[in-house]
Each structure stands twice: as C-alpha cells, then as structure tokens.
C-alpha cells in the first residue's frame, strides 16, 4: 500500500517534469535573457503619452556610445580616432559610426532652407529687428571687417544680411573646434577627438554586450600602446558592465553555494545518495522556475538569475528536513518519516511562499520575476521532496554520529540552558542592539541601487559630459496641444520661460522644435518686420551701397525679397531637413491626443526652477529618475506595512494550528530575527532601502520554518537541530554570498538575509527549551 503510494507520487512527479521539459523546448528556443537596466523599473505611473515620450527619449539615448581618443597633439588624436573608427566599423556592432561631421548633410540642409531665410529668423535676430535694427547691421559690419567671417563673406552676394548664417549659427549653439572635420575637445593642452556611434539595437543580447566591452578594452589597449588614451561612455556600456558583474556573481554564488552544500552533505551523511537527491530537488526546482518565469514574463532578467542562484540554499531545506529525520532511527521508513515532518514542511513552504508573494505585489518587474522564480522553484523542489523522495529513500539509513551533531548538540542544549540563566542580561542586550541599530538607520531611495556601476565608468561619464556638454539630461518637458497651432503656442510659451532660466544658469541649454521652426503665422510676421524696418525703410539699400554693392545687385536683392513673400515652410518639410536629434523631438499629431513634442534639456543645475514650469498650459515635466526615487520611498513605507501584515498573518496561521500562546512563542523567533537584521543594517552603516524590507519578508518566512521545526520536534530534537543547522548553513552560503555583489540592491539583500538567518538560527533552539519548562 505504502509502496504503491510512493510509486504513484513518483509517477506524478515524473509527469509534471515531463510537461515542464516539453514547455522548455518552446521557451528556451527564443531570446529569453534580459540584461537592460530599464527592464527592472516599473512602467511609468502616468499618462500613456508620457510613457511613450519617455520611451522615445530613451530609445535614442540608450543606443549611443561616445568615444574620445586623446593624445598630446591634435594630429595624433586624429590618427588614433581614425584607427578607432576602423575598429568600430569592423565590429559590425553599430548602425552608425560618426567621426567627420557630415558636410554634405549640412550643405543640403543649407540649400533646402535658404529660400526661407526671410521667414526663419532665429530668436536673437528677431529681437534685434524688433528693438534696434541698426545693431543687426553693425553686427554684420563687425563680422565682415574682422579677420574671420570668410564663410559669411562668401555668402554675401546671395544673402547680404547674412540671415542664413545667423539662423544656422543659432541652430548649433555648441561651438566646437574642428580638425579635418573631426570635433576636437581640449582639456588644457590635451586633445580629444570625438567619435559617436549608435548600436544597431537598443536591446543588445548578452554576447553582443560582451563584444562591446571586449571592443572597448582592446581599443583602449591599442590606443594606450600608441601613447594615447581612450574614454568611452554611454548607456549600453553601463548595461554591459552591469551584465558582466551579474554574470560573475551568478557563477560565484552558484559555484560557491553548490560546493559548500556538497561538502556539508557528504560530511554529514557519508553517503552520496543525500547529495544526489538534494541536487535533484534543487535542479528540478531551478529548471522549473526558469521555464515558468520565461513562459510567464517572456524574458527573464539577469538579476533574477543572480537571486535564483541563491535559491539553491533555500530549496535545499526541505530535503535536509527529510533526510535528517532518519537520524539514528533503526529501520527508518521514508513514508513514516514523511508523515512526521509533513506539517513542518507544509508550514515552511507556506511561510516561504507567503513571503515571496509579498515581493510579487511590488510594482517592480524585477522583484515580481524574483518572486515568481523563487516561489515556483521552491514549490517544485518541495514537491520533489514530498513526491519522489519516499520512493528513492527506500532503505536509506543514517545511524552514524556526524561531526556536526556535536556542535548542534552544544547549540541546542547548552546554549539554551546558559541563555535561560542569563535571560535578563541577554534581553537587555537584545533591546539595546535592536534599538540602537534601528535608531541609526538612514533610508536611501535612489534608482541607481538597481545597477552596479564601477566608479571608473561614472567618472569617465562625468569627464566626458564636462568636455562635451551636449548629451541630453534624462529630464525633459512634454508639450502638447489640441492641434498644431495650440501645440506651437504652448511650446513657444515654454521656451520664452526657459530663456531667462538659461540666462540665470539654471540649465545650460534647451532645445525645442518651435525654436527652429516658426509656424506659418510667425513666418509671415518675420517677413513683415524685415520688410518694414530694413527693406521699406531704406536701411538695407544704404547698408548695401556703403559696403560697395553695385546698384544692380541692390535692386536684384529687393526684387528677390518681394518675389518670395508668400513662401512658407511646413513642419514636415522642416523636419525632413533636421538632423536625427531634432527630429526625435517631434512626437506627431493624432486625432485622439492632439500634437506633442519633447523639449530636451542639457546641464540642468536647478531642477526645481524647471519643474515649476509645468503649470504652463500643455506642459508636463518628466523626471523619470526623480519619479522612480519617490516611488522607491513610497514603496518603502508600503513594504513596512506589508511586513507588519505578514507578521499578523503568520501569527494568525500559527494560532490556528498551535493556539495563541504557542503561536506567539513561535513567531517571536522570526520577528526577533527580522528586527535584529534591520538593526544590523544600522550598526554596520549598510544601505537601507525598500529592498532590505523585502529581504526581511524572506527572513520572516525562514525564521518561521526553523521555529516550527524546533517546536514540533519533541523527542526528535537532535535530528531537528541537525536539519535546521544544515538548512541555515546552506542558506547562509547562498544568500551570504549575495553580499559580495557589486549591485547595491543584491548586496543589501544578501546582508539582510544573512543577518536574519544567523539570528533565527541562534534563537530557534531557545524555543522548544523554554516551551518545555
């Protein structure tokens, strides 16, 4: 009968695994690994058009890699940049590598916009015409009489007022020095040649990211060998470095915890069977978790796998409880053993699942994945133990005294006795430790915690931004209007308000389409004012004659001016001439949401002055980083409440099974563990954020597990303490290793869980002891 049950269970397990294996053929064939940092963040909690604008804004930024080849002499920098360009092109990673400025594109743009020079006046020219037209004439004379202005002089015949060169000058406000068509940046006497590249795909796969890093490293070595230096920056590089360290961590944590568990199990059981069975439980759990996660989310993030690696330690617990039950029992029968430990196993699983469900309720896709991964992995490992082990453990005996038992014996008998004797002092110490630690906690809610960024990379990025202040900040304005006219009015009003802020250095630069393209009405206005103050007033004719133009040329210019009066440049026409960066600012019009555009910002120094402008009609301030950080803070508070709720649920659940008095006793272990873990964060000056609170949920789950096993152990206290010690050690090996992570979030998780488990391990044996007295 029993054997029949065991076989049925095993059959059920086999069937389940077959289904998962079949699903895996479908899941693992597509591209299933996610590495990007943004995939971890919750979708913007705002209107869909803002989310769309954020997507467009990021799409362009997230593909850009900036390269600076530096040398003592300009000429050498140019040579190095040329070699670098060849290397980049050969790599086939990039859709575009830009070194020389695209001369032809500028010429084409000039040619296309030239017929509209009287209509497309830049802001400064327009202000001078409004206020002091003679000043405009004087500026032109100054330019023409100076030793520079060759380009302007060459255009003088066709454009005597130099309107075109004024317009183009205002379109490109950053004045960079060019050397053989390459932008040269200077840092003292050191010269840097600039190269811009766009990756082919904003979502690079892991192997491509590794190629990018390898390329950056070889290029750097190459340039340094030639006596130069290389600086590289850009979002893809941050992602690549993050993915690289995550990969290393997966192997460190995975190999470290596997090795530790192997040594522990072999030393304890002196037989390969427990090790093989534990591996089977862990392996099927991890495999099932991977497949279920991919099927559910489409893709799985690298960071989830880092956590997944640590799951090994928890998934192993159930196997340990089962195996240790056989300690010292003659003719131990697996099915009987299972019946004895099943309540403990079930409560352990439930409390763990409950804590992972807590993670799942956070809005962060990353944590949701971790929750599903861990919960499904644990469930399958648990099912493996419960369904398969009764069959596979037939005939297993465990009647030697493992070395570990000496330690656990001391720990479960002598330590509680000593602790009971000194309970007043210990209680005081505990209160002081917890109170003092919590008092020192300083919360941090920064979105950057999700990513590991080597300081070296951040320094380079800062240095590049200082030399080349063109890169747009992540904050921007979204401007909308019912129709194109309405949008134009709104954006113009915003730009008018931004100009004084720029003068006061609240920001370096802003860029909006309406600053370059006047609408039809304004084009007409521009033309009229030129006509009134320069052409009709005779100022232009005087200026031209004084310079030395012939009568005929003056007359031709006047005729030309009259002939183009009704020229108008439409927005689509202007967009066609604009470069990619400016085109990206226009989000388009549709009947549902009207017209929308982005006003991009650079070098923001006073964010609050800028965000104040969102009260203007049709203007929204979009600050992803700020929003996420406030989201973190909000969810930190919410996670605190969740933690309290979890305590209440655990208490209620335990009370149902064991009664209120004992439920309070049992839950004192996980609560103490969580409180002390929190306090340790304060004592050790560790990062305290939302994520530590999620880690405390796990501590609660695991703490309940240990406490319950000690509580129900009864006469089997020796085997329970062995099982709990083995579980705690394996969990510590796994989560403790997470503390080596360079990603703040992962590190914080590891530290918190490790501190909590040590506390739970120390306090669990106190339970049964005091309960008996």
């Amino acid at each position, binding site marked *: 009968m029993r054997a029949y049950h065991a076989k049925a269970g095993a059959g059920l397990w086999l069937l389940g695994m077959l289904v998962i294996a079949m699903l895996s053929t479908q899941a693992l064939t597509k591209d299933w690994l996610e590495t990007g940092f943004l995939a971890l963040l919750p979708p913007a909690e705002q209107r869909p058009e803002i989310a769309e604008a954020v997507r467009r804004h990021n799409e362009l930024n997230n593909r850009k890699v900036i390269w600076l080849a530096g040398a003592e002499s300009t000429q050498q920098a140019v040579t190095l940049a040329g070699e670098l360009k060849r290397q980049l092109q050969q790599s086939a990673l990039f859709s575009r590598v830009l070194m020389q400025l695209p001369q032809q594109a500028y010429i084409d743009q000039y040619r296309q916009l030239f017929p509209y020079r009287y209509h497309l006046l830049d802001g400064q020219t327009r202000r001078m015409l409004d206020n002091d037209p003679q000043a405009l004439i004087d500026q032109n004379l100054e330019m023409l009489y100076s030793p520079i202005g060759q380009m302007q002089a060459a255009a003088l015949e066709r454009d005597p007022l130099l309107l075109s060169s004024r317009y183009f000058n205002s379109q490109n406000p950053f004045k960079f*020095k*060019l050397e053989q068509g390459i932008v040269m940046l*200077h840092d003292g006497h050191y010269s840097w040649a600039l190269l811009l590249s766009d990756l082919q795909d904003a979502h690079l796969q892991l192997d491509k990211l590794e190629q990018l890093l390898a390329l950056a490293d070889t290029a750097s070595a190459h340039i340094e060998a030639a006596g130069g230096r290389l600086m590289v920056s850009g979002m893809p590089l941050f992602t690549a470095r993050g993915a690289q360290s995550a990969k290393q961590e997966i192997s460190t944590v995975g190999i470290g915890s596997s090795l530790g568990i192997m040594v522990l199990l072999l030393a304890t059981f002196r037989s390969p069977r427990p090790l093989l069975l534990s591996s089977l439980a862990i392996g099927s759990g991890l495999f099932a978790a991977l497949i279920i996660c991919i099927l559910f989310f489409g893709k799985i993030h690298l960071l989830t796998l880092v956590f997944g690696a640590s799951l090994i330690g928890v998934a192993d617990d159930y196997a340990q409880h089962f195996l240790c039950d056989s300690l010292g029992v003659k003719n131990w029968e697996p099915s009987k053993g299972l019946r004895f430990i099943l309540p403990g196993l079930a409560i352990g699983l439930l409390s763990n699942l409950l804590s992972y469900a807590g993670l799942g309720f956070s809005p962060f896709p990353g944590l949701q994945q971790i929750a599903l991964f861990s919960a499904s992995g644990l469930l399958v490992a648990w099912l493996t133990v419960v369904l398969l082990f009764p069959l596979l453990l037939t005939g297993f005996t465990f009647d030697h005294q493992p070395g570990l038992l000496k330690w656990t014996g001391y720990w479960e008998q002598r330590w509680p006795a000593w602790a009971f004797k000194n309970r007043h002092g210990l209680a005081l110490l505990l209160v002081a430790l917890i109170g003092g630690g919590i008092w020192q906690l300083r919360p941090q809610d920064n979105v950057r915690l999700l990513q590991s960024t080597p300081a070296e990379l951040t320094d380079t990025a800062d240095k590049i931004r200082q030399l080349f202040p063109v890169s747009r900040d992540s904050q921007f304005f979204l401007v909308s209007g019912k129709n194109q006219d309405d949008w134009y009015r709104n954006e113009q009003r915003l730009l008018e308000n931004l100009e004084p802020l720029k003068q006061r250095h609240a920001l370096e630069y802003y860029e909006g389409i309406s600053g370059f393209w006047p609408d039809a009405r304004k084009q007409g206005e521009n033309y009229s004012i030129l006509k009134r103050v320069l052409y009709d007033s005779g100022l232009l004719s005087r200026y031209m004659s004084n310079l030395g133009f012939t009568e005929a040329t003056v007359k031709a210019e006047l005729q030309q001016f009259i002939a183009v009066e009704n020229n108008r440049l439409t927005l689509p026409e202007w967009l066609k001439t604009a470069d990619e960066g400016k085109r990206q600012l226009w989000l388009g019009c549709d009947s549902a949401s009207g017209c929308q555009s982005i006003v991009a910002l650079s070098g923001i120094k006073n964010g609050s002055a800028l965000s104040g402008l969102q009260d203007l009609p049709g203007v929204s301030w979009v600050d992803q980083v700020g929003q996420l950080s406030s989201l973190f803070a909000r969810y930190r508070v919410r996670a605190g409440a969740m933690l309290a709720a979890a305590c209440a649920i655990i208490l209620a659940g335990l009370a149902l099974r064991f009664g209120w008095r004992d439920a309070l006793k049992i839950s004192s272990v996980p609560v103490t563990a969580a409180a002390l873990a929190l306090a340790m964060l304060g004592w050790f000056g560790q990062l305290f954020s939302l994520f530590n609170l999620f880690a405390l949920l796990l501590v609660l789950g695991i703490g309940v597990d240990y406490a319950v096993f000690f509580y129900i152990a009864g006469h089997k206290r020796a085997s329970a303490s062995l099982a709990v010690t083995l579980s705690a050690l394996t969990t510590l090996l796994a989560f403790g290793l997470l503390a080596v992570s360079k990603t703040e979030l992962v590190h914080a998780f590891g530290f918190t869980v490790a501190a909590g488990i040590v506390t739970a391990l120390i306090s669990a044996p106190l339970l049964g002891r005091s309960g008996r007295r």
Partner: protein
Amino acid sequence: MSFIIFIKALVLCLLFSSHAYADEVLPQITARLVKTAIAEGDFRQEKQLKVLRKPLISTGHFTYHHSKGVAWKTLTPILSLLLVNDTHLLTSQGEQTVPVAFGKIFTAMLGGDLAGLSDVFFITGTNQSASWQLQLSPKDELLKKVIDTMRLAGDDELRFVEIRESGGNITRIEFTRISHPAQLSPGQDADFARLSR
C-alpha cells in the same frame, strides 16, 4: 653651346637653391625672426570681396601673447574686439566656431612659429638678405575648400600676409610699428582674461 647649357644649368641651380624647400628655408627664416613672449603692433587689413566694388579696409591694433593667444582690436571703421587662441574664438557676438585651422594659423603666424604652420601647409619660400617670403598651400582637404594659398613676407618681423580664398576673395594684412613689451598692459590682461574664462 656647351657654355650656354652650363649657364642655364647654373641659373636653374641658383633658382632651385633660393627657392628651396621648407626644410631648409624655414629654420633660416625662423632664426631671423625676433621671438619674444609678447608682440604688439598696428595692422591695416584690406578685404577684397568679389561682389563689392571697393575693398573693405579696417585698421587697428593687435596683441600677441605666447600662451594667451591673440587680441585683434579693430578701431576703424567699426570698433570691435576679437580674441582667439588654439581652441576658442570670442567676438562681441559671443563664442564662435573656430574656423578650420584658424586659431593655429593666427597664433603661429603672429608668434613667428613657422614650424607650427608646416603641420597644416606645404611651404616653399625664399630667404634673401633684405626680406623673406613664404608660399603656403593647405595640406588638409577641408582647409583647401576655404583657402587656396597664403603668402607671408617680412624681415626680422612678419610684415605682410595675403590670404587667397578658394572662392576668389582676397585678404591682405600689413603690420607696422611692431614692438615687444616685457609685459601686457592691464587693459590687454583684462581682454585675455575674458578668453580664458
């Protein structure tokens, strides 16, 4: 007959030697030039634009400082100040794009750093006892689109510059009353301070 050939050969040889390549002439001319940290003087610039019937003539005062750059103060017909070094160009209209190789040419020229010019130009020239002359043609394709040839002439100072642009416009600058003060006047210092800001 052979005598005539000999004479011709000799003339050719002489021509060749006086019209020697930069390698030989440049160091000789450089050696002649007075080299100090500071030079200042008056200029007269004449720009001949194809479209205009008369040249644009301006006069003023220039100051060269070996590390700070050049201040070009136009006094007539319109008052203006242009400041330039290797990397920056500042006019009353603010920061400007430094035209191709302009900063370098300007500072090298006024500082007597002819070797620096040979990075950018192919240089040939003659060096005679009374005066020297150099012909410069750009090496760089981009610069060629703007400048066709340049001519520099002088004695122990640079006295004359002619720039023939590819579009046909010509700029000629004469320098007079060149002196080498030991230090800048406070006014000149203030001008340069704006450039290094």
